[in-house]
């Protein structure tokens, strides 16, 4: 049984031992950031840049052995953006294009493509990062990148409160089901919604107590180096290789 797999602290992490899993977290953070930025700055007509980026992301997912189902399920976080993107061509003005007999704004179509492509690729890159790096590794990576301690603590707290909130929600649901209330969907569960305030306070207080327990064991605001294995500097090649294809295509088009 892999330590950390499916634990409540590390919901997103998928245990593994691939090249990507073994990279130092700070390298992964920088590589992901560089990759996402180079996609984000690409002009929307440069379709070939997005094609290359998509191939890269699919390659990372394959190398990290992230199940396609998991990837797709987690991509659901960008659904709101996608819905928005789909609407744009219908409301956009200017030059019109006929698609299947419907007149759509050309500009709007490009805007929709732009949003959809960047959201999908950005989300996928983040999914790879989160799936291959435990939370403690991420926190340590940020610390190594000299991100201020206060910021790291806030992120750590957010992760913990979020996590506790989800766990509490599960327990409350169990308690309600035990009393013959059967909320199939969260939004059907009025009692849950109406006690969200109480829930938040309870989670917050537990978070406080956990924080105190951490302090009692010498916590100073930075996670100790428990999970990550110290990596030699040579790891940094990854931070260059990961965004390289996208940057190359992007630059070639400018020549």
């Amino acid at each position, binding site marked *: *049984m892999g*330590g*950390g797999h*499916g*634990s*409540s*602290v*590390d919901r997103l*992490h998928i245990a593994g031992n691939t090249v990507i899993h073994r990279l130092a977290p700070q390298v992964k953070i920088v590589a992901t950031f560089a990759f996402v930025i180079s996609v984000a700055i690409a002009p929307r007509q440069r379709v070939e840049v997005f094609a290359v980026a998509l191939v890269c992301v699919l390659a990372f997912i394959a190398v990290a052995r992230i199940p396609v189902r998991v990837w797709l399920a987690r991509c659901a976080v960008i659904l709101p953006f996608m819905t928005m993107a789909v609407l744009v061509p219908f409301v956009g003005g200017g030059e019109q294009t006929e698609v299947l007999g419907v007149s759509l704004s050309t500009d709007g179509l490009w805007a929709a493509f732009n949003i959809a492509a960047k959201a999908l690729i950005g989300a996928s890159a983040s999914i790879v990062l989160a799936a291959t790096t*435990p*939370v*403690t590794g991420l926190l340590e990576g940020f610390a190594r990148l000299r991100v201020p301690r206060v910021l790291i603590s806030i992120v750590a707290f957010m992760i*913990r409160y979020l996590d506790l909130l989800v766990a509490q929600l599960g327990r409350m649901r169990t308690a309600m089901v035990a009393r013959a209330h059967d909320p199939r969907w969260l939004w059907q569960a009025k009692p849950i919604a109406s006690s969200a305030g109480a829930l938040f306070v309870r989670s917050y207080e*537990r978070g406080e*107590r*956990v924080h*105190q*327990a*951490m*302090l*009692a*064991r*010498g*916590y*100073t605001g930075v996670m*100790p*180096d*428990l*999970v990550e294995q*110290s990596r030699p500097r040579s790891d940094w090649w990854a931070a260059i290789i990961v965004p390289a294809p996208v940057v190359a295509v992007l630059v070639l088009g400018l020549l």
Partner: protein
Amino acid sequence: MSCAPLSVDGLCFTYPGEHHRALDGFGLQVVAGERVAVLGPNGSGKTTFVMHLNGLHQLQQGAITIGDLEMCDDNLAEIRRRVGAVFQDADDQLFMPSVRADVAFGPANLGVPKGDRDAIVERALTQVGAMDLIDRTPHHLSGGEKRRVAIATVLAMDPHMLVLDEPTSGLDPFGRRELADLLVSLPQTQLVVTHDLPFALQICPRSVVVSGGRVVADGPTSEVLADTALLEANRLELPYGFDPSRV
């Protein structure tokens, strides 16, 4: 190991936004190597007192000395190393993704190099008889298993003194027996907060009774438990048919 005695004097504490005092002139002297039971009804201030021993509440009034160290911000780190607190709710104490990482958390914060941590973790878990749980996820353990791991997390910091807040809650009789054997086998000075009077009698030669935020009785456990008027006045009750003088 030098076992640190504890001295608490005139401790008063009011929670922010409350008006009544949770601690009201709390005083206690403990000698090195002693095991002292802290008894008292719900809301009498026991947990508030435990938090103070780890500097988790800002000192409002009174003084706490651990060994030669006065409780103050400068000494906080060393006091937290010396005083291992096991909290009332084990769920609050365990927060890492694996038991191994959780037990290593304290030593890592103390700056113990990576290479030495595994040995410390294994020794602490062996001490509490939980070596087989080392690769498990803390949140999926049973109550008794969590309790043992929680004790291991503080033993790994090599404390001089252990403070346990209701360590028997949620344990079955066998787990409770094992815990008693474990605590008696540990060399540290111990404060054991408990509602379990037979447990106190079994492992603690001395008991103090806390009521209204202060110590109202202090003496050999067998005498404290034989004082029915005292017990009744403080909502303490022996299990039916239990006679402390015949144990």
